[in-house]
């Protein structure tokens, strides 16, 4: 679907969302929307609250205030294992692969909520086609993979749940430049195949290049929200995040 058509359908709506760890307010009254078909990025410095925001969207940390709606249904205060059934998958920061399980078992875990065996098998094949490296290492323990391969595995595993919204938390973190390119290509492809994406990245330049829209987060608050192209030419953004 093309972008203008997609914009009509709002998928995720976070309103006045707050996250606190004891006294530390990590996310402060954030409003965030992701529409069907979009690729939206969330950029910001270390400690800005990006991971906390994604975690609260998936029920990994409780929201201390505000609401989350997804396709009209309220997700506020739902546990993680129910949220994935609504169609949201997270590729967590640091990848979170099950290191003592094989690559194939990791991917099968991604399809835990599904029962359509035949379709699961064909999705497994698609992941292996997308990432031939994973196919070669299907029987290997995930802990033996390189960082980039683990990132592919984490992305493949998330896709195995057939999500409507894919949340990615710093997928390029700690990877070699070539691998970073490869991961961003993959993100663009997945987006073009119709999966809506919310991408958290430190690499603001590449993130703004692939995204339609972007949010900038500072000390727990969203300070800017605009078309990705507009953000990329915003002098403040250029100075603070694009190293100019």
């Amino acid at each position, binding site marked *: 679907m093309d972008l203008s058509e997609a914009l009509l359908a709002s998928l995720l709506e976070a309103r006045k969302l707050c996250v606190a760890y004891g006294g530390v307010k990590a996310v402060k009254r954030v409003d965030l929307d992701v529409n069907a078909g979009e690729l939206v990025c969330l950029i910001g410095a270390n400690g800005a609250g990006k991971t906390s925001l994604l975690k609260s969207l998936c*029920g990994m940390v409780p929201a201390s205030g505000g609401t989350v709606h997804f396709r009209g249904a309220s997700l506020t205060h739902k546990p*993680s*294992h129910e949220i994935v059934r609504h169609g949201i998958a997270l590729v967590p920061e640091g990848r979170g692969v*099950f290191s*003592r*399980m094989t690559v194939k078992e990791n991917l099968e*875990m991604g399809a835990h909520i599904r029962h359509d065996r035949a379709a699961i098998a064909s999705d497994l094949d698609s992941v292996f086609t997308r990432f031939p490296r994973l196919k070669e290492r299907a029987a290997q323990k995930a802990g033996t993979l390189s960082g980039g391969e683990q990132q592919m595995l984490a992305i493949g595993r998330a896709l195995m*749940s057939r999500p409507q919204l894919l949340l990615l938390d710093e997928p390029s973190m700690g990877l070699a430049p070539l691998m970073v390119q490869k991961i961003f290509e993959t993100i663009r492809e997945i987006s073009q195949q119709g999966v809506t994406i919310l991408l958290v990245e430190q690499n603001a330049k590449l993130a703004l290049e692939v995204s339609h829209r972007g949010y900038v987060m500072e000390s727990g608050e969203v300070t800017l929200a605009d078309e990705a192209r507009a953000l990329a030419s915003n002098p403040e953004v250029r100075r603070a995040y694009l190293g100019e």
Partner: protein
Amino acid sequence: MDIFLQQLINGLVLGSVYALVALGYTMVYGILELINFAHGEVTMIGAMVALSVIGALVGHVALPGVVIVAMGVLVAVPVCMLLGFTIERVAYRPLRHAPRLAPLITAIGVSILLQNLAMIIWGREYVKFPPILSSATHQVAGATISDLQIFILVLSLLIMAGLVALVQKTKLGRAMRATAQAPQVAALMGVNVNSVISLTFIIGSAIAAIAGVMVAAYYGLAHYYMGFMLGLKAFTAAVLGGIGNLAGAMLGGLLLGVIESLGAGYIGDITGGFMGSNYQDVFAFFVLILVLVLRPSGLLGEQVGERA
């Protein structure tokens, strides 16, 4: 009579029961990093419940002994499953995010509570296991093995094989392993972590119930205090194999049984008759101390820090 072979057989039989109980410790530790010290008491409750059923049936129904014992087990297993489930819900779940000392002390509290409860229900005296099982024995290369020993060994190995198949080959087992490695990520995949934890307690307790009946049948008696020593030895077996590791618990159990048995067989010779086989229990604690000093991660244990 070949003492070595005889003690090896006795050790493997005893060890297979230790292994069954050790599995319960190691499964719970693998997921919660909690030593469920009440697990030995679950074993005791299993033996006691089964003996109550057996005692009520013997002499009143004209059934073969094996069938009567099986009926005792069939009652003891669900009772222990419910007990294990309840222990986790009531005693451990509210402390899931408390400092680790809190659930540990609670575990000891549950243990004492169950012992006292059993003492009130079944009394302080030994409860006899009626002699209704075959007492036939077989000679193997100079050693003796009884029908009961063969039965215990075979059933234990079958249960272990069944558990390994469950954990390695089924979707539930995969979810259990994922939960043990990274509970938050498992939840992201749609695994209900609380259900998996409950199931872990339920499965471990079912196995404990069977082990409890085996011990009672083997020694011919049960006692409200029997879970303490059995639990401590099974815990030692789990630590010996590498706590958190299923294969380790099985290996540790069998090894501990053999060490104990051989030790008891030879301790008289070694000490020139100064110590007798009644010192058998010393070996378990000697092993525990040695492992904790020399190799705290156990024989098959993973390096600390691998947990995601």
